[in-house]
């Protein structure tokens, strides 16, 4: 088990961040072998924050590369991604992040 937090610069997310307590938090994915779950929440800062709990030790460099690419390609400033990982491949992490991001935007536009 390994836990780390990472803060990265990212373009501000395109929707106005909802007020605390708003129901636009999005949970995405399933914890199972080779899968992970992601919770997306808004925060008041300009950065994008990742809080990662993973069962696979020793892949910190790969995590940094995947999360840095995501922060650069998806406007996520103002969002926190809390991730609970059970040994996913980088492909799954990148796909789930993109899905969580889009789900948050959709939920935000309905709110």
């Amino acid at each position, binding site marked *: 088990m390994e836990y780390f937090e990472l803060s990265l610069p990212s373009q501000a997310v395109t929707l106005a961040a909802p007020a605390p307590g708003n129901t636009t938090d999005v949970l995405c994915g399933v914890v199972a072998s080779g899968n992970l779950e992601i919770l997306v929440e808004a925060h008041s800062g300009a950065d994008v924050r990742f809080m990662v709990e993973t069962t696979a030790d020793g892949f910190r460099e*790969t995590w940094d590369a995947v999360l840095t690419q995501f922060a650069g390609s998806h406007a996520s400033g103002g969002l926190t991604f809390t991730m609970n990982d059970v*040994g996913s*491949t*980088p492909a799954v992490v990148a*796909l789930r992040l993109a899905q969580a991001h889009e789900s948050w935007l959709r939920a935000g536009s309905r709110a």
Partner: protein
Amino acid sequence: MNTRKERLAGISHLLNGHHVATDRMVEVLDALIRPGDRLCVEGNNQKQADWLAECLAKTNPDLVHSLHLVQSVLALPEHLDIVERGQVERLDFSFSGPQAGRLARLLEGGKIKLGAIHTYLELFARYFVDLTPKVALVAAQMADREGNLYTGPNTEDTPAIVEATAFRDGIVIAQVNQIVDKLPRVDIPADWVHVVALAPRPHYVEPLFTRDPALITEVQVLMGMIAIRGLYAEYGVTRLNHGIGFDTAAIELLLPTYAESLGLKDKICTHWALNPHPTLIPAIEAGFVKSVHCFGSEVGMEDYVAAHPEVFFLGPDGSLRSNRAFSQAAGHYACDLFIGSTLQVDLQGNSSTATRGRITGFGGAPNMGADARGRRHASPAWLRAGAESAAPGAMPRGRKLVAQTVETFREHNAPTFVERLDAWDLQASANLELPPVMIYGDDLTHLITEEGIAHLCRCHTPQEREQAIRGVAGFTPVGLARDARAVENLRDRGIIQRPADLGIAVSDASRDWLAARSIKDLVKASGGRYKPPMQFRNW
């Protein structure tokens, strides 16, 4: 005492026509097989002459030894038991599957000499040149009183083995599940068969091509979408062969949903060289599929196949006639695309499933995953791939599309992309003449990963090719070492296409696109005709 006639005369007291009693088979083998014989114990991908293999392992090593095994698949423990008993001197084969580890140990221990690891077509071809079996032990479903054989849906390798053996003064011995007065159809005529015996239980058949849709991941759905838009639709691929894995099962299940939504019905995937994959059922039901020729059958698909004479090759009895040799030839010469998966890809695009300590062999993938240099007939997909690959001023010709679809990381986060294939280590440890490469890089035209598709056939230099491979290699060390500028340049030129470049929203890659999401869905789609084997009944 070496002609067939002389050898059979030695067991005339045991023969009733072609038939011998079940409990005399070991005696028959002791009498018929001579030291130095080339012996084929029919082992196919699926059907196994397992009882005859057991009898062989009970023969007297003083009489039966110095054998040269020439058979496509070494899947049963008995195949290697006779090696361990010191009865085998030399081995030529194609695929070892579950025996890969044990075979590697026997070779490393010097217990046996390896002729070669063949592809199916090569080994079948050598049967007719210099590796003709003297004795062939084959499996059939039924025999009649005269010794005609009914091989049924799993005909597989039997015609190639029997034709070579029977017409070169060799002896064909068949185990059958049943002896009947009248066969549903004759697959092998009695005068090509010399000894028939009722096996104490039906021969084993492995359900090798059943993939449970419940295990298909969203990344595989994404890669399937990339394949359909970037490869199938782009080149208008109508004649093709699929590998065995979950990646291609995902594509099969996306045809009646995703591909249909793109208006691709009748434009792609109409004619196949393929086993009757259960995951192809929804596409057949949707009218996507016009024709399928099969290497072998698949357990549980018999009734479904029999209900579709407009799609499958059936006998006059209504059941499937498969033939591995013909389907391999079809896969090599008549298909415009081969797509499969692999364990490792290097910087030249060479790929291999070899890992240290395991000699799995090749099977048929290299026959289909290779440009057919002898092909002369044209098709739009073949001409397009050829034109894209051509050096300036070269004689125009076509080219087969050969694609690998791989995730950048495998289980336990092992990178698929590597600087050096494990095949080199296996070559050294097993003393092979060449590293066992499944698909050579210069035959590979396309590489698909979750990062996108690399059109390798559009690269003009080895440097471009290497960057195109690195450019879809994701966060593997090989991918991270890419020249970012060169990769962006390849993307601008359409050599690398990301999902977005193909009009695919990554977030749209959902399992909801799969036409069946469980084995039970496949049963429903088949109208109840598909009867999955017990191990897949999980509802």
